[in-house]
């Protein structure tokens, strides 16, 4: 099987910069969705999987890419590109990575183009959503972090899963 599980470092362990995380920081796993940098709180993540074979679900909302088998549990895959109203993955893309989160004892996989690193970010540095941000994005974002030259959108997993 092509399942490849990347273990996510437990929060509080060594992260970039060798500093232990503390209460003033939140740790994010960074993802790229159509070149947009996003962050998902590490605490909400169950698994990170490589490219999976996904069964399409007819008549499901467009955001639902299908379902996949994670060690005998059925995981509903949400296409973040579609959810964030970004263009679909171009032809020839090597396939999306799955970031598995849990809500109400159900597993969901957030499909991202790329999974980056684990970053502790100071809570104080999180800026509120710009008022001009696309309404659809404002809805699913907790705020924005500046990472060097790039902006990271903090994803609200609850909101992302509120489909239909």
């Amino acid at each position, binding site marked *: *099987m092509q399942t490849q599980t990347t273990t996510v470092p437990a929060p509080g362990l060594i992260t970039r910069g060798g500093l232990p995380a503390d209460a003033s920081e939140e740790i994010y796993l960074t993802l790229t969705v159509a070149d947009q940098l996003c962050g998902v709180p590490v605490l909400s993540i169950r698994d990170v999987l490589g490219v999976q*074979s996904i*069964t*399409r*679900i*007819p*008549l*499901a*909302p467009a955001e*639902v890419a*299908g*379902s*996949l*088998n994670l060690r*005998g549990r*059925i995981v*509903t895959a949400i296409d973040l590109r579609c959810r964030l109203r970004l263009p679909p993955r171009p032809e020839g893309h090597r396939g999306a990575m799955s970031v598995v989160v849990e809500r*109400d004892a*159900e597993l*969901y996989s957030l499909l991202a183009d790329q999974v980056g690193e684990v970053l502790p970010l100071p809570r104080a540095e999180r800026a509120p959503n710009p008022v001009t941000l696309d309404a659809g994005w404002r809805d699913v974002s907790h705020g924005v972090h500046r990472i060097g030259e790039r902006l990271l959108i903090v994803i609200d997993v609850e909101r992302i*899963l509120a*489909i*239909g």
Partner: protein
Amino acid sequence: MDDLLTDFLTETQEGLGALDAALVRLERAPEDMATLSEVFRIVHTIKGTCGFLGLTRMEGVAHAAENVLGRYRDGTLRATQAGISVILGAIDCIRGIVAALEGTGTEPEGDDASLIAALDAVAGGDAIAPPPVVAPIAVTAPAAEAEPPPARAPAAMVPAAPQAAPPATEPESAGANAPPQTIRVTVEVLEGLMMLVSELVLTRNQLLQLSRNGADNAFAVPLQRLSHITSDLQEGVMKTRMQPIGNAWAKLPRLVRDLGVELGKKIELEMRGAETELDRQVLELIKDPLTHMVRNSADHGLETPEQRVAAGKPEAGRIMLNASHEGGHIIIEIADDGRGLNAERIRQKVLAQGLATEAELAAMPEREIQRFIFRAGFSTAAAVTAVSGRGVGMDVVKTNMERIGGTIEVRSKEGRGTAFIVKIPLTLAIVSALIVEAGGERFAIPQIGVVELVRVGGEGAPQLERIKDSAVLRLRDRLLPLVNLAGLLQLESSATEESAFVIVTQVGAHVFGIIVDRVFDTEEIVVKPVAPILRHVTMFSGNTILGDGSVIMILDPNGIARATGVGAESGEGEAERDGKRQVIAHRSDQRTALLLFRAGDATPKAVPLGLVARLEDVERARIENAGGRPLVQYRGKLMPLVPMSGHWDQAMAPERQPVLVFSDGDRTMGLMVDEILDVVEEVMTIDGAGERPGFLGTTVIGGKVTEMLDTAWWLRQAGEDWFGGAEPAAGAGRRILLVEDSAFFRNLVVPAIGAAGYAVTAVPDAEEALRLREAGASFDAVISDIAMPGMDGFALAHALRESGPWRSLPLIALTGCSDPADIERGRAAGFTDYVAKFDRAALLDSLRQCLSAPVAG
């Protein structure tokens, strides 16, 4: 040993185990009120139950121990080690008795006087008598004292410790060694086990699949073994969840009794097959619907004692519950011998609520009309009683049953009673499913709904036929409505329909076909619920993981039926498919499927799809001319073709001629039309009956005036032998009176018998018929519908037979339902014969017989 005693023993064993531990705790901390209360409660429970079961010896001991504990609890006496020892002695004595009870089912002989005296002494606050006082349990009591508390605690976990049996009271050691027959396990543990086994089954399937694909056979044998063990384990764990259905019925006798009192009815409740087992999850889900149905039976079903006596029935009504196994299903029947469903009241209600038109109702067999009670908000109870009739009713029951993959049917005879037949799966956890492919995706269809599998296309196989965009399959003399799964799920169908499979599915009484591209094998699947964000997709009942590890959606036949309108609660009754004359073969939502076509002029024409046997495209070259009439060789026979435009000119004819084929037995005829337009579902209301030969009248379909084909008239054009074979003059002008309230049927029956040479007079109701009689009209025979508003067929028969000039005329009943009991009732009312509504041949036959034999009198 009865269940009560078994339960008691199990409970007591548990109690004793807990007591040992608690008493030891108490000894160390005599002030621990929580422990004291617990101990007191357990002993009190044991005492109470003993008294109830008549176990006097045990009760005596427990009572004495309770006294001591009561004083400890009240604080009037301080718990001492010596006191606790005596109580422990009492517990051991009880344990000995329990062990004996398990072995023999009766209390052993023995004298507990000294033990009770010791307990009383403690309770009295006397100086503690020395331990030897508890003489009868001498063997155990010292042991209890000698052992330090920590050592006793683990021992307490094992109920019925063998040494607990005092030799004095327990002569047979066999009973003493017998372990408890039952243990209690929480439901969560069982659910957990079930889940694990389900996963194991999936993993096993996966392994089997791998081993089938791989060449390495070294694993084959152990794998086979694993497979067997897994199956056994699965079965074993399933068994732990099985409970007798009697558990769900336990409250019913009381309920029925109370209802009887409340409603002033005498009701006997009979329960059969209470031991039939089913999964507790299913049991929980059907409990309420069952209760509801019993309530309904008591309230609506059964009459009052006076009514029953008047109807010649025993005063006490009976409600019968019957459960039995059938395959992987359990059948539960809830029957009463009450008044039965009042078809007339249902009809009125249907009309009042606009659920169907009169014409549609007239065309419906009785059973189909009865199914209206499963509609939401449909209650025929005239009054809302405290018991039922509140508008939440059978629809909820039906929905609940469907939710767990079950079905519900109703059978009712007016005046005789009503029976609901529920068919539900034994378990919801694991089902056998057919794996199919459509639009490049695989799906699982639970086998419960699958009636048969038909391969279509290809050599010698049945062909899919199209009526405009609707696909139909002619299967054993019947047009089966089809739904394309890929289309339904909005998938692109990759395979061509030339070679496809049709899964003939039954939902309730409705049969339809699902077109799929491929069919794989069957697999045992574990149904897992779909994620909440997908719940609104009603086409799926769940999802699962297949042997190859892939996720697959499980189709819900009910959902498919609903989505396509095939199975809406009014569809064609499979069992009512009597004869090919059935006018409305494929209905949905009280609508009739009509085939629209153009012929002759621009006005669209319509014919009920159910009357059309096939649609053909005949090449012009194949049409022959014999004596000015077009014919075609069709399936090895000559089929007469009737041009709808009146005449047929080979030179003017199109390259391919669309033909509607009608067939009856081995006779066929083709109606040549210009173009097939569509199949629509419409509520059929016909205006301006019979203004033009060949048409029943006009109706508006899709905003256009459409002419309704008078099929009988056109059939007649194909040749005289269509009706009545070689006896076109069978009727010889004999006069027939037809009493039929539905205009639609009058239009159908009149030409049919008229064509056989009878002179037919039709009237819309019984009163009109009687007026004709008073007016002195004379007929050779009377044909009457049974279900009519006002005076019905039975009453008419009575009236005719009673007196008057028509008293000896042959009377033929025409009805939608024709089972033996009904026929009997008809005969009793005075009918000479009983004929099903659509069976023209039988009607003509009956007429011939009635009129050829000289009628008595």
